[in-house]
């Protein structure tokens, strides 16, 4: 898999693995890093909710700007944030791409005899931007707050243990999932020479997918044992990193709450 399919799989895997890996940014002295993890979690998740409620381009762009501002104030390099956040919206855009021609509206251009409508373009652009902004906001949590602190904050916010458990396990397994895929691709590439046709590459990729599935199950079992070996059979209980909430924490949460309300008012005209 040294051709297009192989390179694409390798790049996407590397990017997704990066999304689930913690970075040194969490140790920087920025706005979100100085906040109590509970405040960060509530505020950023609230902003992501407000983005999901939004249905207009202007509101979505506003939240995009808020995300950029939060990133700058938290000393998160925008390029790194973009790299972490780009894969999911691009994949989402691919999924909703048929809406370009399925949604009725004014024809803007014809591609291979099929009409691309203005409503279709608006839908795809808006959907992709909303997903991108939402993912960027959630990435901000991971980039500015150690994951164990996020889990501890969820426990302190009295989010049901089962849900915290699912989030903690899913996050860890997603990281391992992409780590395993990257290891498999590297192992394959190290013993692949020359070039093959696109068809041959797809055939190789399908074989790889089967092996990957088996390896993932196997590794999942081994990691499960490693967790149990250190008390993983008990409910997640990372050390808390919370402190007394200060005015800035409350202000950030209030800002997020206000944006949820405003987003709702704009959408439903309450």
């Amino acid at each position, binding site marked *: 898999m040294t051709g297009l399919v192989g390179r694409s799989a390798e790049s996407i895997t590397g990017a997704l*693995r990066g999304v*689930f*890996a*913690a*970075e*040194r940014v*969490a*140790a920087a002295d920025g706005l979100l890093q100085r906040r109590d993890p509970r405040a960060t979690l509530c505020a950023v998740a609230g902003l992501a909710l407000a983005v999901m409620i939004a249905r207009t381009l202007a509101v979505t762009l506003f939240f995009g700007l808020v995300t950029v501002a939060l990133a700058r104030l938290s000393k998160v390099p925008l390029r790194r944030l973009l790299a972490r956040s780009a894969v999911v919206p691009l994949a989402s855009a691919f999924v909703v791409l048929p809406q370009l021609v399925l949604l009725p509206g004014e024809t803007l251009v014809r591609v291979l005899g099929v009409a691309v409508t203005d409503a279709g373009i608006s839908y795809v652009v808006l959907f992709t931007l909303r997903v991108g902004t939402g993912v960027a906001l959630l990435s901000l949590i991971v980039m500015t707050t*150690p*994951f*164990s602190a996020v889990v501890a904050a969820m426990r302190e916010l009295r989010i049901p243990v089962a849900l915290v458990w699912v989030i903690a396990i899913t*996050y*860890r397994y997603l*990281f*391992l999932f992409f*780590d395993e895929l990257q290891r498999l691709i590297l192992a394959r590439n190290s013993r692949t020479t020359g070039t093959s046709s696109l068809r041959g590459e797809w055939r190789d990729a399908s074989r790889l997918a089967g092996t990957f599935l088996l390896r993932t199950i196997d*590794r999942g079992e*081994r*990691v499960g*044992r*490693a*967790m*149990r*070996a*250190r*008390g*993983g*059979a*008990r409910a*997640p*209980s*990372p*050390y808390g990193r919370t402190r007394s909430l200060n005015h800035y924490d409350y202000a950030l949460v209030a800002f997020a709450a206000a944006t949820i309300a405003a987003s709702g008012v704009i959408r439903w005209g309450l």
Partner: protein
Amino acid sequence: MGPVIESHGLTHEYPDGTTAIRDVTLAIEAGERVAVIGANGSGKSTLQLALGGLVDASSGTVTYFGETTDAEAVRDRLGVLLQDPDDYLFNTTVREDLEYGPSQLGMPRQAADRRIDRLADRLGLKGLLDQPPFRLSGGEKQRAAVASVLTFDPDVLLLDEPFGAVDDRYRERIRELMTAHEGTVVLFTPSPDLVPEVADRVILVGQNGSVVADGSVREVLTNGSLLREHGLRPPTTVRLFDGVVEPEEIPLTVSDAREFLTREVR
């Protein structure tokens, strides 16, 4: 004080029908230093998992501290280090991995922080604490995994190939940490060379997954024919002195050999 781990007729069969360990009956006493040796595929790692309560035995029992057969009830007293550090380090930073055991097992944070600082310093991990584990080299991952199992200060250590890809300097540090551990240490390794420096007792697992020898380091490691029959070679010093001096005089470690040679030459 009774055995900290005692197994009776322990057998584990994988779903494909392979019997990894067969009718293993043994007792490990408190404070013992035991090495479980065997060739690749002999079932050492499965035995470690079964003794650590991490796989369900097909038959047989394991009793912990003479009081329970439920490993989860004594999880804070058992330190099980798995063979592959990539499986063992599943958190997003090294620090989170070092904190995982102590926090899950209820160790107070300050005590955990002190142990983490000390172990990170000892094993050269201080500058790596905020790194994602997958960015570490093989030896660094192994050191982080060893530190992770030591952070919650378990009474019994069950360590599967803890020296892995570690360089000589840190291999010595890990050996010192094992020696300094006040509880029980059980090392699983395919390499008899390391054994005399860390163990007093050796259990040899044969290629069919059963225990074929259990005795002192000298008894087992100087029995070259037995070791070769089960796919292993005696330690280097034993091979060097075998047939040259009486079996009971064979030096087992390099430092013993050096002392012996110095004495003889003078």
